């Protein structure tokens, strides 16, 4: 080697060479992955029964939190349909006149947590009662209208039970208000239950994800144990440790991906099986209920997340086991 600086042509030639060797390296790497991915898939399909068992275990384990999530979402929707959309009835003290009622309605209507306020006059109340069977005779016996003004306050949709409760308290404190009637307390209990349910789903998802990692890990462990001889041959002909490990990592990804797909399909099947009964419930509730489907992103994210879990399981076990093989 001389100290003479390279001529531009030499430098260009060297650059081109290093680019070529770099692109060969990348192509070789990509080819390794392509080969490992297809080889591991081939092995999985080569023993369909065992693969099916592993995939089914992962699929059913992951379908469980999805099913709970579906159930919870629908209970929440029912709660929303029956509870949150209900107006709070504010009964004014007897003797409050039309002007006072309108004034109060206006001031309540300006609250940030209120969507709408309608004023129902005593006459409207009387008419409603009169329309009901059996009351008209009794009403005629009254000298004057005993009914108070009633404000129907519709809370904003976005309010949770606590905020509705705050609104109710505020309304109760109004001087001219006699009584406030709302369905908040059962709503609050439902929300508390739903909160608990959500926590249970989260814990369940965590535990069953761990189970999926272990299932894949164990399957890969058995697979590697059965291929000790093959691994030895691969190492003798110059395979690096990462090359030896790669098909097992892909196997983990395939197990996870297929298991996740099964979980999503099972969840959709559960969803479809709920359509008919919910339809009947819907009819009974005058069209206010409909089934809340699992969001598409969750159905798509489940196989992806599950593939990641499979990879993690395969990665942990293969690292540990190949180290033991030396």
């Amino acid at each position, binding site marked *: 080697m001389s100290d003479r600086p390279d001529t531009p042509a030499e430098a260009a030639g060297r650059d081109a060479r290093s680019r070529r060797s770099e692109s*060969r*390296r990348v*192509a*070789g*790497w990509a*080819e*390794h992955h392509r*080969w490992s991915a297809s080889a591991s898939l081939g092995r999985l399909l080569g023993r369909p029964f065992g693969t099916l068992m592993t995939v089914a275990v992962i699929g059913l384990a992951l379908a469980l939190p999805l099913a709970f999530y579906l159930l919870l979402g629908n209970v929440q929707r029912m709660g929303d349909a029956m509870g949150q959309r209900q107006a709070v009835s504010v009964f004014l003290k007897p003797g409050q006149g039309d002007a006072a009622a309108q004034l109060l309605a206006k001031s309540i209507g300006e609250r940030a947590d209120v969507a709408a306020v309608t004023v129902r006059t005593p006459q409207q109340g009387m008419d409603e009662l009169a329309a009901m069977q059996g009351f008209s005779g009794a009403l005629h016996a009254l000298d004057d209208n005993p009914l108070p003004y009633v404000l129907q306050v519709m809370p904003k949709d976005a309010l949770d039970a606590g905020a509705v409760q705050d609104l109710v308290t505020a309304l109760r404190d109004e001087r001219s208000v006699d009584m406030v009637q709302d369905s908040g307390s059962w709503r609050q209990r439902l929300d508390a239950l739903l909160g608990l349910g959500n926590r249970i789903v989260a814990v369940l998802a965590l535990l069953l994800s761990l189970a999926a990692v272990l299932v894949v890990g164990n399957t890969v462990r058995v697979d590697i144990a059965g291929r000790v001889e*093959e691994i*030895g*041959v*691969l*190492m*003798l*002909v*110059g*395979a*690096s*440790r990462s*090359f030896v490990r790669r098909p097992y990592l892909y196997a983990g990804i395939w197990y996870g991906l297929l298991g996740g797909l099964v979980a999503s399909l099972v969840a959709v099947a559960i969803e479809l099986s709920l359509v008919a009964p919910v339809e009947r419930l819907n009819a009974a509730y005058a069209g206010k209920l409909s089934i809340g489907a699992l969001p598409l992103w969750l159905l798509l994210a489940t196989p992806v997340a599950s593939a990641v879990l499979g990879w993690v399981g395969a990665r942990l076990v293969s690292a540990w086991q190949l180290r033991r093989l030396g």
Partner: protein
Amino acid sequence: MIRFDQVSKRYESGHEAISQLSFEVGDGEMAFVTGHSGAGKSTLLKLLALIERPSHGQIHLDGQNLGKVGRGGIPKLRRRIGMVFQDHRLLMDRTVFDNVELPLVIGGLAPAERGKRVRAALEKVGLLAYERQLPDTLSTGEQQRVGIARAIVARPALLIADEPTGNLDPQLAVEIMGLFAEFQQVGTTVLVASHDLPLIKRMKKRVVVLDHGRLVADVAAQEVL
């Protein structure tokens, strides 16, 4: 190509398989390593492929000091060496083609190029017609030839073989040794461990004789009677 400098290998059991061994094999040379069983033939080959490490001394391969090759460098080193084993070491659940293809897959070659080279190697050992078969459907001699095709498919500069004719009848053994001689003719350095003296004598190549891990004779090709 190969240089052993005062190399000793003592196993953990205390057995010294190789004792202060020094010898060289030139580029493109073919040599036999022979001796009784336990003379250290296999250990010598294992040291070259870094399946074992020497306890003392230095081994150079193609100018590279093997003592400086770390764990991570072993795969790369082995890709430069074609290895043939007495028990073939084939993957029994893969076809002949897939077995021979392995070193090329590890080398990261594209499928089309792999196919060409695998077929060329199989043709060389006369097994092109068997590429889709599983190894157990072949005879021992044929399996050994699959092993040889796998060893040469990546065109290594060095080919080492440990008792490659150990399980073969004399006729097949001559054919296999002839194959090795052909690879030498195209420039590959070949080192074969064998205890089959009559066969070695027929080949008229250099012979290195070991006894209890020591070099006791080094006979040049032209001096082999």
